[in-house]
């Protein structure tokens, strides 16, 4: 059973090796003449003002949190979908109830204005 995953592991390893070796090779081949101006952060030709790691909109956190909530619920649907024909009417009703719960949470999120981008 586990051996079907070996190709996948091999591919992950090859991907990492490919990426790392290309970066190392380019570092070896390319010139290295650094000046202060070249190493400064790009800011449309101006002197960079402060660090970029300041506060940013909380909306991005909200989107990430809602993604985690909804994504976990979507993952629940995969085993159900695979076995759908065997589960029949019972499985379908159970999933509809689950989806109604999911959808009411979704409507709450929308009504609260968590997804309003303006």
């Amino acid at each position, binding site marked *: 059973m586990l051996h079907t995953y070996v190709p996948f592991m091999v591919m992950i390893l090859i991907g990492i090796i490919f990426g790392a070796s290309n970066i190392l090779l380019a570092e070896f081949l390319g010139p290295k003449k650094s000046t202060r101006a*070249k*190493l400064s*952060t790009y800011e449309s030709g101006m002197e960079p003002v402060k660090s970029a790691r300041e506060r940013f909109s909380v909306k991005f956190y909200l989107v990430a949190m809602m993604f985690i909530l909804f994504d976990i619920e979507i993952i629940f649907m995969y085993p159900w979908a695979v076995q759908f024909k065997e589960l029949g009417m019972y499985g379908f009703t159970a999933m509809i109830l689950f989806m109604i719960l999911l959808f009411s949470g979704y409507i709450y999120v929308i009504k609260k204005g968590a997804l309003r981008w303006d």
Partner: protein
Amino acid sequence: MNLTQFLIITAQAGMLVNMMLIAAAYMVLAERKVSAWIQNRLGPNRVGWWGMLQSFADVFKLYLKEDIVPAAADYKFHALAPVISIAVAITVYAVIPWSGPLIEIDGVQYGLAMAPDMNVALLTILAMTSVGVYGVALAGWSSNSKYSLMGGLRSAAQMISYELSMGLSIIGVVLICGSLNLVEIIQYQTANGWNVFYQPLAFVIFFVTALAETNRAPFDLPEAEPELVGGYHTEYSGMKFGLLYLAEYGNMLASSAIMATLFLGGWDPVPFIDEAALLGLDPYSLPMVLIQHGVFVGKAATLVFVFIWIRWSLPRFRYDQLMNLGWKILLPLSLANITITGIVLLLLN
């Protein structure tokens, strides 16, 4: 698993990586040529006949360029981000069923697909696209530039938002085929007709989300040039930039191939017709498998062309429009699609 099998798997992996590199090179050329035609220009036509060697010249140039890391950037994560991006893009290629079994060694059949018996192939693809967000978000954060950070944040939020609808649209296909194994999904479509006829809405949703996942126009907000310069790769140069770019094109081909697998019948040449019987060939014989491989690559290439076509035809969305489309239109639509598919399947049984 013995040594021979392991060596064959490694050889397959090497072939797939090479395939991806060459495909990406010609996709970049196709992108430049198609955009040139659409904008009434000639496009690259100096390096090689018809610009055929342009991309290879570009790669050599990238190798010889200085790798500039801004002094304010976090050096380790700045280098790690492109590695994550490219590793994820390459890994997805392992589960895509590029062809049926081509050769048999020691009683085990091998084709261009590395993991054809993997039961959770579809879930793996979704998992890998989630990991891909790390590459983009890290690239944006580690550069310590305002443009990069904004581009990385936007891109991460966009990718995770559209992943929900992508996952939900696939469930319609899984309901019909009853499997997460990509080869079984293709075999089901060969026998019963392509999924695009039964799941047209899911196909449209998947296509739109695939555009958003690969950060292609009209969803290329992360690198909206007029406002964000280059988005998360503003501070990248040399081969690190090259790897991010390569990952982008690799993902485009991968999502086209997945679309062909899930909705367009995979390697089945014509829907509702048994080609093997028509041509008088055994369905698992070598010529038939080669025809099927050609058909699969042709379908993926056509979808890549549509991606390019859309990029050079449509204007960019605004960020609030993008988020509204993802959360308020595509998500309820894909939930409705699952419910309707479930009801119809119950009624048919």
